[in-house]
């Protein structure tokens, strides 16, 4: 276990370092000028040049990169061109909202995946489940997000379609509205936050549910043909117990890997979903930063996503090991 954690920590640093190299290379290629972005389009050329000098943009790229790494080691990600705030502060402000949304989407997606896979297993030869999964998997996220808004907010008005909460001026210790509401004993906050979570989380969860569900269904299909499943049937167990007790845990590994991979795709979808549902998280921050070529902010978000992705996949590997006693970290 210690060896495993050491190896993974090394990989963690390596991947984050690669993210910085990629984003820095982008910075060198993209013809956007942060100095011009700060001073505004009407500023005289001398002012722009002075700001360039202050920002160190006239130094050679390797020197800029080394300076950046030094700052990063101290937790300084630079200053956002757009918000004029330290990027680290911006990230701290927007991260909880995104974590809450991603967490909800993960839980919802996994639950849906389970339902889809079991439905496909137990309703044998049912083409309907497969068709539903295929259809749900083929709808692009911007379309499904807009459909959800149109149906449940605009047309039926069952659920709110924008923002995180319907209550003004609520602050909690963790930044996750649902958890804060529970901690502070405010059922109104929990209710409102959950209602706001449903639609964006569902939009993010659909592609995840289809991918993980299909992976689980095919793993279960194989597992239920294994001799030990036949042994279980030979004991006179009903089929649902064979699936639940002997099937699921043995079939867990491939869908768990798929869940880890899907997180990366979800970060891409996050930009669209947070924009569509006006969700004040890192995705929305990223969209706005990209529009104003705010490279320090983009770099900060990319590093955060990278870190979360690696940590989550580490957790997946640990869970896989716990699920299978033959595996050792």
């Amino acid at each position, binding site marked *: 276990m210690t060896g495993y954690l050491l190896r993974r920590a090394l990989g963690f640093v390596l991947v984050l370092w690669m993210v910085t190299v990629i984003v820095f290379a982008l910075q060198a290629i993209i013809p956007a000028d942060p100095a011009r972005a700060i001073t505004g389009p009407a500023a005289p050329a001398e002012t722009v040049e002075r700001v360039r000098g202050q920002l160190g943009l006239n130094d050679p790229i390797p020197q800029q990169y080394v300076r950046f790494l030094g700052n990063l080691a101290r937790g300084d990600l630079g200053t956002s061109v757009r918000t004029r705030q330290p990027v680290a502060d911006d990230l701290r402000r927007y991260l909880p909202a995104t974590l809450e949304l991603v967490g909800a989407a993960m839980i919802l997606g996994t639950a849906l995946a389970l339902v889809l896979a079991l439905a496909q297993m137990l309703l044998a030869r049912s083409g309907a489940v497969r068709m539903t999964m295929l259809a749900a998997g083929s709808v692009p996220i911007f379309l499904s997000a807009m459909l959800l808004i149109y149906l449940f907010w605009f047309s039926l008005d069952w659920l709110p379609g924008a923002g995180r909460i319907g209550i003004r001026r609520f602050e909690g210790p963790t930044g996750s509205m649902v958890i804060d509401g529970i901690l502070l004993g405010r059922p109104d906050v929990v209710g409102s936050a959950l209602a706001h979570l449903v639609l964006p989380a569902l939009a993010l969860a659909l592609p995840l549910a289809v991918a993980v569900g299909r992976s689980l269904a095919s793993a279960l299909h194989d597992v239920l043909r294994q001799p030990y499943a036949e*042994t279980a049937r030979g004991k006179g167990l009903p089929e649902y117990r064979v699936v639940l007790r002997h099937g699921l845990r043995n079939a867990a590994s491939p869908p768990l890997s798929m869940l880890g991979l899907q997180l990366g795709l979800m970060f891409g979808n996050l930009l669209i979903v947070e924009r569509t549902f006006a969700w004040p998280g890192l995705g929305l921050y990223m969209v706005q930063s990209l529009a104003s070529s705010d490279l320090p902010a983009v770099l900060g978000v990319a590093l955060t996503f990278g870190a979360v992705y690696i940590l989550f996949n580490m957790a997946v590997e640990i869970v896989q090991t716990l699920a299978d006693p033959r595996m050792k970290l």
Partner: protein
Amino acid sequence: MTEPVVSVRDLVADLGREAEATRVLGGVSFAVGAGEIVALVGESGSGKSTIGKALQGLLPQDAVRHLSGSVRIDGTEVIGADPRTLRDVRRRLVRAVPQNPMGALNPTMTIGRQLAESGAARDDAETWLARTGLPDPRRILAAYPHRLSGGQRQRVMIAMAMVARPRLLIADEPTTALDVTVQAQILDLVASLRSEGTGVLFVTHDLGIAAGLANRILVCHRGQIVEDGPAAQVIRAPRAAYSRALLRARFDLSTDRSRPLPTAGTAEIAPWPPVAKGKSWALELYRVVKHFPAGPRGRWGRRQPVRVLDGIDLRIAAGECVALVGESGSGKSTLLRIAAGLETADAGDVSRSGSVPPQVVFQDAVGALTPWLPIGAQIGEGLPRDTRDTCIAEALREVGLDPALAAALPSELSGGQCQRACVARALIRKPSVLLCDEPISAMDVSLAAQVLNLLNDIRRRAGLGMLFVTHDLAAARLIADRIAVLDKGRLVEEGPSEEVVTSPRAAYTEQLLAAVPRLSREGLA
């Protein structure tokens, strides 16, 4: 006989997908009494395993086209029963022990929980684990299956079946996947179940095992029971022609090895002609050492090396056959792979005569052929184009196949034909050494006899050096001039075949010999 616990009458089953249905069972009738061990003997495809599945009500539902007749177990009718009744029958009345225990236990559940699921109270589970000869039942109950060896797992399977106190125990070739020494222990254990009053239906392809274990023998052929009688009588004076053929094809440690084995249609067999042994060595292995990373993991997750071959010296002359005998994990397959050049030794020397590398004949003949390439194309791969077709035809004739089969795909051939094609593929390169990795262990006796005859004939005619890797001492004695016994990576014995079998020097060889099932006709009288 007392009131039978199982009576099967006119059992007919058609199995198949879609419209293609084959009659797998064509009117099977028999009975098993309480405390009686009945052996169901037949070759692969005879329908013997289908009978076992039908008794449990576990035939794959989507493959059953027709099922009729009657199976009464302790008064309950199984054929046509609803799923609920069938589950009840499986829980209380019929239990099964599988062919391969390795995959038959859930890898992510402790043995204790799997036994509890089988309806065992904790004390009961412990008692039964102890009765099957497992040391320290408490530790086993808490363990996961991967901690146990194959033999231990099969004991657990037997305990798991017996805790339910079933009226009938179906054991479907429960020892074929196990090492010979373990096989003998499991057979003793099954024999001891007689006292429990449970009827045992023991499915096997080996008449020797059946003779040593069963009260009665049923011989199954093409979905029919062709013979049903007391074990001694079936072995001594079989009535059905098929039973006689099965008995004749069977070989053991006392079979005449001076001539080819009798196969169907052969009356008088001339002895093998003497082989002109070459003076040169076809294959020399000198102090071969090999490690595998299989030990416990170190700090950085790398496994410690474990020595699987520990200084092996082995030499094979041209025209000579050496059998390498050992149980699973002895390192015999690794040694063959090193001789073939598929694996490199960590230390020691391997030298081969001739320019053609040794060719290998594998255990799984069907898996050793590419499914979408015609046989001929696979045999002749890499030969010069102008003489390829004549070479392929000649190689096919040499292994007793019709040259017209060159255009056939592997799926159109039987298992035996596939193994012949594999031999042809090995021979066409004209190697000086042929390496055979358990080429007959997955075969029925009559087929195994044919392949043994073929390999023996070829190495005698072509003057090949042959390494024959096997776990079966009877087969080793028949084909090989010398036998080398491998135990845990060391050669514990090496000598002329007859000598090793009649007067073994190593204790391990004696153990292997004692475990070979024999048809002692005298003992049955």
